[in-house]
């Protein structure tokens, strides 16, 4: 297709998005151009091969225990009730709770970034940190639940996604630190980087609380 000026339009024809007024010319060209005919055959074969790929692939391990633990943590915190089972749009919210979230994020990162190189060699220093973080996170959710004020559903969703991102950052940080545990220099740079990030979040938290 790269060798023919009709290459792009050929793909549009293949995808059914070519403007109708161009269809007859491109189709006629396809009949007379060996390069485009070969390209067409390759597109057909590629689509067939892609459609033949397995729709499901098993993960390397059972992910359910971790998922179940996260679900359970979402229900176990005092005052949360059944927050994790309710749709995001139904959750009450108070705008002032933004500082709750900011503070939780700061605390979580503070706990994490407080990890020093000496901690990496312990059996599993993350377990205690993880429990502390889970408590902070669920306290935060309890704060949301207790609030009786209104908030747009999309904002609640955004907050939810923000909490997910914090969780994700925590997990990836742990993975990253695991991977560089044998390389103190790299680990030191990571920790220094997270200290800087924590400083920034602390500033944000102060702004949110004003």
């Amino acid at each position: 297709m790269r060798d023919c000026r009709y290459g792009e339009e050929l793909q549009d024809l293949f995808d059914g998005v070519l403007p109708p007024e161009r269809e007859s010319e491109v189709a006629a060209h396809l009949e007379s151009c060996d390069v485009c005919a070969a390209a067409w055959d390759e597109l057909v074969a590629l689509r067939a091969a892609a459609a033949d790929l397995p729709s499901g692939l098993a993960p390397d391990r059972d992910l359910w225990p971790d998922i179940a633990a996260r679900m359970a943590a979402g229900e176990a915190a005092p005052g949360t009730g059944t927050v994790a089972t309710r749709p995001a749009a139904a959750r009450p919210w108070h705008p002032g709770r933004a500082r709750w979230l900011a503070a939780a994020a700061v605390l979580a990162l503070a706990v994490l970034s407080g990890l020093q190189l000496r901690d990496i060699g312990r059996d599993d220093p993350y377990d205690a940190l993880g429990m502390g973080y889970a408590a902070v996170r669920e306290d935060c959710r309890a704060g949301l639940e207790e609030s009786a004020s209104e908030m747009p559903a999309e904002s609640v969703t955004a907050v939810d996604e923000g909490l997910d991102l914090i969780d994700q950052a925590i997990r990836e940080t742990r993975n990253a630190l695991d991977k560089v545990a044998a390389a103190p220099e790299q680990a030191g740079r990571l920790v220094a980087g997270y200290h800087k990030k924590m400083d920034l979040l602390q500033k944000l938290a102060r702004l949110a609380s004003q």
Partner: protein
Amino acid sequence: MQAAQASEDRGHPAQPVPDTARLVRRAQAGDHDAFGELYRRHVDRVFALCLRLTADRDLASLLTQDAFVRAWRNIAGFRGESRLLTWLHRLTVNVVMDHRRAEKRRRDRETTLAEGGEPGIHAVVQPAPVGARRDLERAIAGLPTGARTVFTLHEVEGYRMREIAEMTGVAVGTVKAQLHRARRLLREVLR
């Protein structure tokens, strides 16, 4: 769930298999076990999508977890107008895209960390030059991120370009260009 499966394997009388709609209703009422069964039925599809979008098994595992946790949190909002799998797929794509955006922001801010790199994240797998199914998987994994995403969503998952544009937050023209690029690269590799 594994215990239940093992029970069946040992020849114990099989319990009636609840349909998906019933499991969804139970999950919406807070039933962890019902959601666990939904997980078991759909995890391979969700993981395959995550793996093809990320080309990284560890990351795909993390994002699969995130997708199911988010699904649990939002399942009360699932009204059943679409199939649960369709809803899960869309939610999973959103999780992957959110991760990608967060990664981009992080890389933009943490240039010093980026120098050191984080092995395993967005690792590019070198494709093999033959056309078997496994080689197509490898070839897809070797595509640049944008091309891989669009090709996977369009050719493997069957989304339309307009839908992909909405999910990924780019213009339809960009989706089309990425799709064409993906096909060109794949044809070169698999030829």
